[in-house]
């Protein structure tokens, strides 16, 4: 029987370690590699030009690599549900392969395509190549719910076998066995579109920092490993001013588009570590960034509302403000805080910002200063950030806005002090906001405090050439901390109950007497809170004590130091539900 395969690229834009593509080649007579995109849709989608450019460059690179194997990439215009029936017939397809997509939207789309393929008698083969681990497996091992703390997640990963080893790159011989005739007018029908075709008007030579594609990804990987080997230090590097700029060894956009296999990265790191340290097992922290990605994929895979507050069972309901004007100032880098504006400018121009910079702007937009919903910030990142993945982007925004994952909210990044700690001389700001470049170091983070003469000497008068700060940070952070406290105090069982929220009070809300006297008589005028029978000053009610005090069913086991296992696990589990928040809380400790 003739086997005509189609491999459908979505993410996973690479020829190395691509199990789904290997499946397409296996025993096939012909193989066509397709990418489906809808140019009509492209212009209207909430995706910025940098992300499109990165994608198109990645596709170009794929096409170039396939040419070397005497094949080509078929970029098919349209929507998958319309395109496939046509292709199935036209190419007499018998096998369709693609990578597993763990995200709820992707799962739904793929289920529809698989069903359609069945109707056309096309076999579908799906392989997980985008993550190290199978999210469903992790969920199963966590008693059928996704782990909601990173520590818990790590504990489970520790118990798993190593990720599957990466597969080699597609070879010329493999491809030769299933060559497909390429039409002369291939480029007219199936060529990689230009940005102009997608409706973007950009000068062709507009500078961009991140070049898409597998070739670039593998070069960067080598540089990344070389540098690690050179410094021979596997600790998380201390952040410096230099960290804020795009690095030639940065990999996150390549992991996002699958130009680089996460498993290749994983095993290369692992081998390097073992070679240099001669220790049998590298610590999990070596793979920090990769594991965060897995963590959020796992948290999101069964939660279609993961990207919104409403109807999202893990998201704390916070009364954010609607403030379109303030949101626009933030998104366009017009807040009047040079540190925030420089970050947003870098994001818009280059599509990547350092993770601490993400923390800074996310905190500023949400719980720190503007009190605007994380959903709005997430959408802006979705548009501009090269490595924004649905799960990782939404998950990080919930994390940074203290909307999920049991965060302490007391810790608010200061839009002046935080940047200054990292880059005291303000080089980063001078680069992205040239207007401010002549301000002395002392005022570069707070130009509004510079005397008028200094502003004039710097050729930049605040309020004229550069905006005044849009908000009084001291005042707003005080208010917002108070708001967060209100929110969290209502979640009396919320395990991440902050230090601040646990500050005692003689009552939370008055306990109303019930219909009969059974409760009223036992309470002191409805004032004594049952949650805190003794307001003893010496016992700061930690989240633990308040949880245990008010929920008799909660069991708690103390682990004695001698019993401390290397793999941190406490079997104790309790489920808490709080004000629309249903969080399975597993012991962080």
């Amino acid at each position: 029987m003739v086997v005509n395969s189609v491999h459908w690229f979505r993410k996973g834009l690479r020829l190395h370690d691509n199990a789904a593509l290997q499946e397409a080649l296996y025993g096939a007579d012909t193989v066509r590699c397709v990418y489906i995109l809808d140019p009509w849709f492209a212009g209207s989608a909430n995706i910025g030009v940098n992300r499109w450019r990165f994608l198109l460059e990645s596709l170009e690179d794929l096409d170039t690599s396939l040419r070397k194997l005497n094949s080509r990439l078929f970029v098919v215009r349209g929507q998958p549900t319309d395109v496939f029936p046509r292709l199935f017939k036209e190419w007499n397809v018998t096998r369709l392969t693609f990578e597993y997509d763990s995200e709820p939207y992707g799962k739904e789309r793929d289920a529809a395509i698989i069903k359609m393929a069945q109707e056309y008698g096309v076999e579908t083969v799906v392989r997980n190549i985008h993550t190290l681990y199978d999210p469903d497996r992790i969920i199963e091992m966590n008693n059928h719910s996704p782990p909601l703390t990173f520590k818990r997640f790590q504990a489970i990963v520790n118990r798993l076998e190593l990720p599957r080893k990466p597969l080699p790159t597609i070879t010329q011989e493999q491809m030769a066995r299933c060559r497909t005739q390429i039409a002369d007018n291939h480029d007219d029908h199936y060529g990689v579109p230009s940005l102009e075709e997608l409706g973007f008007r950009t000068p062709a030579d507009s500078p961009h920092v991140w070049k898409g594609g597998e070739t670039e990804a593998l070069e960067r990987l080598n540089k990344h490993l070389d540098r690690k080997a050179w410094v021979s230090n596997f600790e998380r590097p201390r952040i410096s001013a230099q960290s804020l700029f795009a690095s030639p060894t940065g990999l996150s956009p390549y992991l996002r588009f699958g130009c680089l296999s996460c498993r290749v990265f994983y095993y290369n790191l692992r081998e390097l570590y073992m070679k240099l340290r001669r220790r049998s097992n590298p610590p999990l922290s070596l793979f920090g960034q990769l594991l965060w990605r897995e963590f959020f994929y796992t948290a999101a895979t069964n939660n279609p509302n993961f990207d919104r507050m409403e109807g999202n069972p893990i998201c704390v309901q916070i009364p954010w403000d609607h403030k379109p004007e303030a949101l626009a100032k933030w998104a366009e880098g017009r807040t009047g805080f040079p540190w925030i504006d420089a970050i947003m400018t870098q994001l818009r121009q280059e599509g990547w910002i350092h993770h601490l910079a993400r923390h800074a702007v996310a905190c500023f937009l949400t719980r720190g200063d503007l009190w605007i919903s994380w959903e709005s910030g997430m959408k802006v990142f979705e548009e501009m950030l090269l490595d924004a993945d649905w799960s990782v982007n939404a998950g990080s925004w919930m994390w940074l806005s203290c909307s999920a994952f049991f965060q302490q909210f007391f810790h608010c990044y200061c839009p002046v002090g935080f940047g200054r700690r990292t880059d005291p001389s303000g080089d980063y700001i001078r680069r992205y906001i040239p207007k401010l470049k002549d301000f002395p170091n002392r005022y570069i983070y707070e130009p509004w405090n510079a005397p008028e003469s200094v502003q004039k000497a710097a050729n930049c008068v605040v309020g004229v050439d550069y905006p005044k700060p849009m908000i009084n940070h001291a005042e707003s952070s005080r208010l917002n901390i108070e708001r967060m406290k209100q929110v969290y105090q209502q979640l009396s069982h919320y395990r991440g109950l902050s230090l601040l929220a646990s500050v005692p009070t003689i009552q939370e809300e008055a306990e109303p007497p019930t219909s009969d006297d059974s409760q009223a008589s036992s309470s002191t005028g409805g004032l004594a809170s049952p949650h805190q029978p003794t307001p003893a000053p010496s016992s700061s009610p930690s989240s633990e004590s308040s949880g245990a005090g008010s929920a008799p069913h909660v069991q708690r086991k103390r682990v004695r130091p001698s019993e401390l296992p290397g793999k941190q696990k406490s079997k104790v589990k309790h489920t808490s539900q709080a004000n629309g928040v249903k969080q399975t809380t597993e012991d962080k400790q």
Partner: protein
Amino acid sequence: MIRGQKRGDDQEEGRGSPPGPAPGPGAAALHKRLRREDSEERDHKDGTVDWGQLPQEILLQIFQFLPLLDRAFASQVCWGWNQVFHMPELWRCFEFELNQPASSYLKATHPDLIKQIIQRHSNHLQYVSFKVDSSTESAEAACDILSQLVNCSLKTLGLISTARPSFMELPKSHFISALTVVFVNSKSLSSLKIDDTPVDDPSLKVLVANNSDTLKLLKMSSCPHVSPAGILCVADQCHGLRELALNYHLLSDDLLLALSSERHVHLEHLRIDVVSENPGQHFHTIKKSSWDAMVRHSPKFNLVMYFFLYEDEFGPFFRDELPVTHLYFGRSVSKEVLGRVGLTCPRLVELVVCANGLRPLDEELIRIAERCKHLSAIGLGECEVSCSAFVEFVKMCGGRLTQLSIMEEVLVPDNKYELDDIHWEVSKHLGRVWFPDMMPTW
């Protein structure tokens, strides 16, 4: 949305279901009556029960477990159920949520429901709070409701701005007249939370004149129209006051002495926000003798202080011994001030430092561990501490540290410990598994 009765509340907010109330003396009688009625009237031929005829007491018990919306649906079943729906017991506690669709993501209490409550149940309300979003309209709506509560006697009132201090945008007179309606009509107000509102001295006088015997809790942080004399008048007259929250500029020696007078009950919590109103503000000092008087009178009281100051404004603070128990630094605080904290705060229980300069806080933390024998909770944000000093700190405090929230970036590896070792070392001294707090490195 209704706050509901305690048990209904629990269900609604998903706090897990606590055990129901023990059957009181009424239960047996009720049971008897139910059985009697059951045998006399409810024996249908087919053995089914006529739910429409359930006694009111039973229905009330059931209704208390239901969220408002379900009760509203049930009330449409029959006349009897509708009557129970309106029983006063179900309307003692209510939380008005006033949100505008343009400024909030959260739902609002339906205007028809508000109307109905004012018409039929305002005399039943006892525990009332208003949650208001950032719009002035919402704050106005809250005041309109307040001013209609003429025939009710509230025990607790909370005005809560969930996003911005929107009550501050109202004309002061409008707000005051609404609030005064409650003060005058409710003769047994025990708890009043009015942070971020334009309440003023004369209105506090009205409060004192009507509720001085019952007032136990007063929260009024960031109320700029109140003067030290205004709050002093409250402390002088309301001898039952057990908890007070206000801004530092209202704190005076006289106030502390009034709260420590013999006639006054023991104060339990005093919460002070230290905020600079204008740049370069000079802060007054409180005499050590006044604090001593407070501690003598209320030896167990919690003094919670929130500092939102610039580093150069800390001059007058932590010079003398200060009985603070919960200390929160919301902005950057200098190494030097933290050093003074260790010397002057022997009652310290909880310490949160959001940010500090670039120099590690090693000696400061060790000193705090040494001097603050009650310290049981600490949180560090943008600071730096060497791993060795941190381990030493934890070792000195030991198991009494019930909360230890340290951002990973805070800990600076040194020749003794790397980051991977530290959770082991700290866990050992704490007697439980501990990890630093993390942020996604994505």
